[in-house]
């Protein structure tokens, strides 16, 4: 099932300092190694990506999001 997003992720990492300088804390959309747009909310980024690039593979990522937190510890008595 996994999709290869390595090209998009590498492009995001290369451009990240520039994106932060230009746009600050925003959601960005990448298609292949091209930056396509920046948005204040995830919903706006997702709608843009679907409307313009719905048939393509794309990456949506925040420019300064902290690491994900997912509680995955369960203790059985």
């Amino acid at each position: 099932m996994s999709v290869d997003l390595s090209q998009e992720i590498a492009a995001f990492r290369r451009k990240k300092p520039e994106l932060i300088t230009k746009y600050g804390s925003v959601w960005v959309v990448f298609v292949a190694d091209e930056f396509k747009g920046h948005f204040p909310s995830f919903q706006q980024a997702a709608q843009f990506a679907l409307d313009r690039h719905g048939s393509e593979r794309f990456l949506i990522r925040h420019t300064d999001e902290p690491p994900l937190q997912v509680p995955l510890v369960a203790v059985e008595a």
Partner: protein
Amino acid sequence: MTWPRSFGPTGPTVMERRALLLRDGCTLDVIIRPDSKSAGAASAPEVLYKTAALIDTGASKVCIDYRIAQKLQLREIDQTTLHVVGGKIEAHLFLGELEVPGVDYRELVEFVAPKVGQLRYEALLGRSFLTNFMVTFDGPAGQVNFMRRTPELLQPYDEG
């Protein structure tokens, strides 16, 4: 329907509801759908998945069992590595639509789907969802109350 809206375990007495809330937490019924242009939606427009999602302020986003993402053929939009006790696990992020009928919520959201074994709950409603509401954990009453954030209610925060 008016606000606030209350959710929590059902039980004949407050004491029982209180004990159940302490033990199990609070869940909301959710409906998950692929985005309208994904492979899943294209092959079966009415495809959806219903489950009970645990309210979890310890999760930064909405999390789902990765098998739900597989079943619905959700569109993968990012990948990351989670550092957890005992090592690292791969997590894939998917685009999909989350509907929570109890609080009139229906939006495109980012779902985190860690590749782990069976979870007690198939979905967690993390802070990316909770940020849309004012939520009160009323332990003594055995319930959780949701208030919608309206523009008027947001104003003092936005101006501060």
